[in-house]
């Protein structure tokens, strides 16, 4: 039993830290730390910096441009990234589609699409959820019918996707579509790559609880998709979809994000006062902070135990469900405490304060304006990526055998 990293892993951590110190623009880390909006160009800028170093798609195999890192190295990188307040890697191309193409795509698809993910030619979004297919994803109704039109073989797609994160920026969408309505619901689904500029696609933003536009509805009306854009075999899409959902989830607990936001919370609790003394010295608030801090310290080790098991050849599998549930509960509790820490000044709604470079006079303490929006925004954590209740179903079946 040894909880420390090896000297090689420590050296790697230093290398990663040096990279963030040298290459992460302060402008970007400030935006992330202060919880302000990132524009498309900001995210693209960071992708390009990572790609230049060969660290963007850090879990891809070397032959497709990955760095060949171990699961522990990836874990270290992801954590250091959060601690450095680096922007998140936009996951849809790099983390979701990439692995599916590498495992199930044709040679031609790999050669065409993978480099374009890395160099930023294509911004991908995810077409999974539908108004009628959330937790019951296999109940999706968007159809694709294979036809010949103008002498070309195409799928004609009709239907609607929703909760499409950052779809407003996207060049491409990977979609689950129903190609065999007569089959059992999991067996009639295919995996299609669709150009967002194709006629018949309409993107409508959904304004979320915090007033922000992060997700969209995407409507498909007689959208023609070349058959070359089918990944794998027709009607086998559910297999690929499941692979995507279980791939590389050892960082799903978001421990790095929690550590970074807890450090910020501690700073706020030292400066905010209650009854004439620092909030950190208020016994009830201190107790709530200590509870989540202990949960987080436990979670760090739980996460490392799972990572070590995977590094030793185990499968991440259902353990990632445990990481997801507890990890998101911790992250949500930290955002709740941060909101509470600002007291009355958590109330003013100053959306312009979320804009990069806003130089107005803050209402109340600096950064108070982001606390409540961030708290409300992060309610999503226990809903997306398989709600925490779905994760409990997975644990019941896969780990508990019930």
């Amino acid at each position, binding site marked *: 039993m040894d909880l420390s990293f090896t000297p090689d892993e420590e050296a790697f951590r230093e290398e990663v830290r040096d990279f963030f110190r040298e290459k992460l623009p302060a402008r970007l880390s400030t935006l992330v730390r202060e919880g302000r909006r990132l524009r498309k160009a900001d995210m693209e800028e960071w992708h390009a910096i990572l790609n230049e170093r060969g660290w963007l798609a850090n879990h891809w195999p070397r032959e497709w441009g990955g760095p060949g890192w171990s699961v522990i190295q990836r874990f270290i990188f992801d954590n250091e990234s959060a601690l450095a307040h680096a922007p998140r890697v936009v996951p849809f191309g790099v983390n979701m589609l990439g692995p599916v193409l590498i495992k199930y795509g044709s040679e031609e698809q790999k050669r065409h699409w993978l480099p374009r993910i890395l160099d930023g030619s294509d911004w991908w979004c995810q077409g999974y959820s539908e108004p009628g297919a959330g937790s019951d994803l296999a109940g999706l109704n968007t159809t694709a019918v294979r036809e010949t039109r103008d002498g070309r073989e195409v799928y004609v797609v009709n239907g609607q996707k929703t909760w499409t994160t950052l779809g407003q920026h996207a060049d491409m969408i990977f979609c689950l579509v129903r190609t065999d309505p007569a089959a059992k619901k999991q067996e009639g689904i295919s995996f299609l790559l669709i150009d967002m500029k194709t006629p018949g696609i309409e993107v409508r933003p959904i304004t979320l609880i915090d007033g922000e536009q992060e997700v969209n509805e995407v409507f498909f009306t007689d959208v023609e998709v070349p058959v070359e854009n089918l990944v794998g075999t027709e009607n086998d899409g559910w297999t690929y979809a499941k692979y995507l959902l279980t791939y590389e989830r050892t960082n799903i607990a978001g421990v790095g994000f929690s550590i970074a936001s807890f450090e910020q919370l501690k700073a706020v609790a030292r400066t905010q006062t209650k009854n004439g003394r620092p909030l950190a010295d208020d016994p009830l608030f201190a107790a709530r902070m200590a509870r989540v801090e202990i949960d987080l310290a*436990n979670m760090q080790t739980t996460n490392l135990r799972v990572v070590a098991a995977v590094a030793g050849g185990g499968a991440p599998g259902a353990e990632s469900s445990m990481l997801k549930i507890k990890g998101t509960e911790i992250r949500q509790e930290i955002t709740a405490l941060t909101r509470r820490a600002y007291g009355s000044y958590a109330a003013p709604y100053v959306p312009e304060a979320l804009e990069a470079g806003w130089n107005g006079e803050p209402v109340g303490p600096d950064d108070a304006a982001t606390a409540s929006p961030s708290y409300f925004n992060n309610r999503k954590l226990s809903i997306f990526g398989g709600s925490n209740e779905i994760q409990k179903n997975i644990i019941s079946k896969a780990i508990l055998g019930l």
Partner: protein
Amino acid sequence: MNFEHSDDRRMLADTLVRALRDGYPIETRNAGAYGEAGYDPAVWQQLTELGIVSALFDEAAGGFGGSGFDIMVVFEALGRALVVEPFLGALMAGRALAAAGGHDAVLARIVSGETIAAFAHEDAQAPVTATPDGDGWTLSGTKAVVHQAGAASVFVVSVEQPGDPLVLLVPADAAGVSVRRYSVVEGGGAGEVTFDGVALGPDARIGTDGQGRAVVDAAIEAGLLALSAEALGAMAFVKEATLGYLRDRKQFGVPIGKFQALQHRMATVLLEIEQAQSAVINAAAAFDGDDATARARALAAAKYTIGRTGALVAEESIQLHGGIGMTWEYAVSHYAKRLVMIDHQLGDEDHHLQRYIDLAKAA
């Protein structure tokens, strides 16, 4: 990074788990635990002959282990079998003696299992005081809820006083020592230990001037780790028993484990147990470290986590079993009691949360 125990340690754990599984069924355990003595002297002898106490001490103290992870695997195994025999007393009293040095003969007998010891720490309403008398002391007052006090032939007694605590070794048969014996709710003996003008010579002292706090801490820190690990073992048993019941018990024509309301409760139990295991791993690792504050914080975090999770696992396992979980005959009820009552030893969840906060300020 490696979360596997070393081969030696795993072998020790396996030997112990097997010996307890084969030789310590719940009926044997309960016969000792709820009997007159509060433990079974024959079982104690068998287990100590396996070298279990020796595993809790390093070579300098006459053992062959003594690291945080040794304590963890031993007490996890003891917890899994709900052992009531006086291992905690051996650990805490022995660790105090080992930290101070001196009293080698007594320590050797504790490590070999010949002598049963108890660590008498918490004061009753009349606190224990030591009045200087010549070059020794006269001891008066009462220690509260000393576990396995009736079995012990020596007590390691902490005496709070201005500055540094005084720590004394007191034979149970010394003139003026009396034990009011009783059982504790989950089984096992305990007692109020009263010192009525007990005359002690200078050789009764454990440690020297300024060493008292460190000696007391050595005992308590080992005890916190042991109790936390014991709880982990008990939780592992309860989890398996509850899962078995969810699979076997049928209502409405199906195993009750098919019901989502119960599945989700069980999934929560599982992930909280995993978190508790991480807390104990953190504590065991810090136990051997040089950073005293980090060690104290990790132990406080572990005992807090165990207190909270122990009660959760106890309450949920009873609820998930329904009426059966309430019966004396069924093993889970005794484990549930132990899991809850561990929170009443060496400071509860709230105590350790406060300690965790205070230590952060000190750091």
